[in-house]
């Protein structure tokens, strides 16, 4: 497998970005949901602190990923796909990137406006984006939750579409993102 994308498959770097972001986003959803429902406690402080650090790591990874994508166009979609599916795939991926930037950004704004600044995994202090403001905090909290709900729905749609390509259409679209190529069912 190549480092760069080919016309048929994603390369190692694009795949690493994809699976790393996927893994971190799933972990992040779990940690966020778990911590937000804990009572005020050391556990909540600890998990929310990890959640904020992880969120900024995802934001940085997604920006790097977009940079790589700009330099290295993704492989083409299967020629058998109808036009509406290509458009839907394009729109979904664009919305994915938008949400992967906006959800952590709103989390960061929420933390800043709450007066609970971030120290990245205990290594350095992350600057606040806005000063402490109760109304702004409520606004960014609602936005963060809304964007994350949208992101989670998009993950479900994305996984369902990938499985449809693999199991129903059998057009090899999902395999472009797999580091190994399982034997096809044909």
């Amino acid at each position: 497998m190549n480092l760069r994308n080919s016309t048929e498959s994603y390369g190692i770097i694009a795949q690493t970005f994809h699976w790393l972001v996927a893994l971190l986003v799933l972990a992040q959803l779990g940690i966020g949901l778990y911590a937000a429902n804990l009572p005020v406690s050391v556990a909540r402080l600890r998990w929310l602190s990890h959640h904020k650090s992880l969120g900024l790591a995802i934001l940085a990874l997604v920006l790097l990923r977009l940079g790589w994508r700009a330099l290295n166009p993704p492989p083409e979609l299967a020629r058998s796909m109808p036009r509406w599916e290509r458009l839907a795939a394009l729109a979904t991926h664009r919305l994915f990137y938008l949400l992967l930037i906006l959800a952590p950004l709103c989390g960061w704004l929420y933390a800043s406006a709450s007066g609970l600044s971030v120290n990245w995994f205990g290594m350095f202090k992350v600057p606040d984006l806005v000063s402490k403001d109760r109304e702004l905090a409520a606004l960014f909290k609602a936005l963060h939750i809304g964007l994350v709900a949208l992101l989670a729905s998009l993950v479900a749609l994305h996984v369902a579409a990938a499985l449809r390509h693999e199991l129903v259409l059998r057009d090899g679209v999902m395999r472009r993102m797999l580091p190994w190529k399982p034997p096809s069912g044909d």
Partner: protein
Amino acid sequence: MPRFLLVLLVSAALPAAADECYSVDAAGGSVSFELGQAGSPFRGAFRRFGGELCIVQSQVARIDVWLEPASVETGLPEIDAALKEKEFFDVGGHPRIAFASESVQARGDRQLARGVLDIKGKRRNAEVPFRMGESGGKPVVSGSFTLDRLDYGIGSGEWADTRWLGAEVKIDFSATLSRR
């Protein structure tokens, strides 16, 4: 004119050297705190406080101040509620935090009050540096000091672990004084 007469005349023009006591006004003043949470500063303030400051022979001689920890405000209602519980301020059992000076030393325009700080029934010797100023024709007292929250049992149980919630708390205060 003999010098001693001049001194007498000037002295007579100054305010009487009798005890002057002032009350500490919460309105327009502030008592705020800052401590580390997960490696970043976290701030809050107390809205209700008061007390008395007395001046004898143009020197601050006595300070008696209090604050109600139930008036704590961090901007986060959940945290405000937790701070009023037993593990933190236990506002039910100890509605007031108090400081009473035992001595006050002037060092130029800076002064140092030594006394006893009483939080949650734990009385510890404390040194509070402050300075006197003026705002709108009224005297203003302001200063800052740090304390170790664990000396007073603020944050007991799991909160005694200072990795996620720092031990050192910085207090900043400022208040105008009204003549009694």
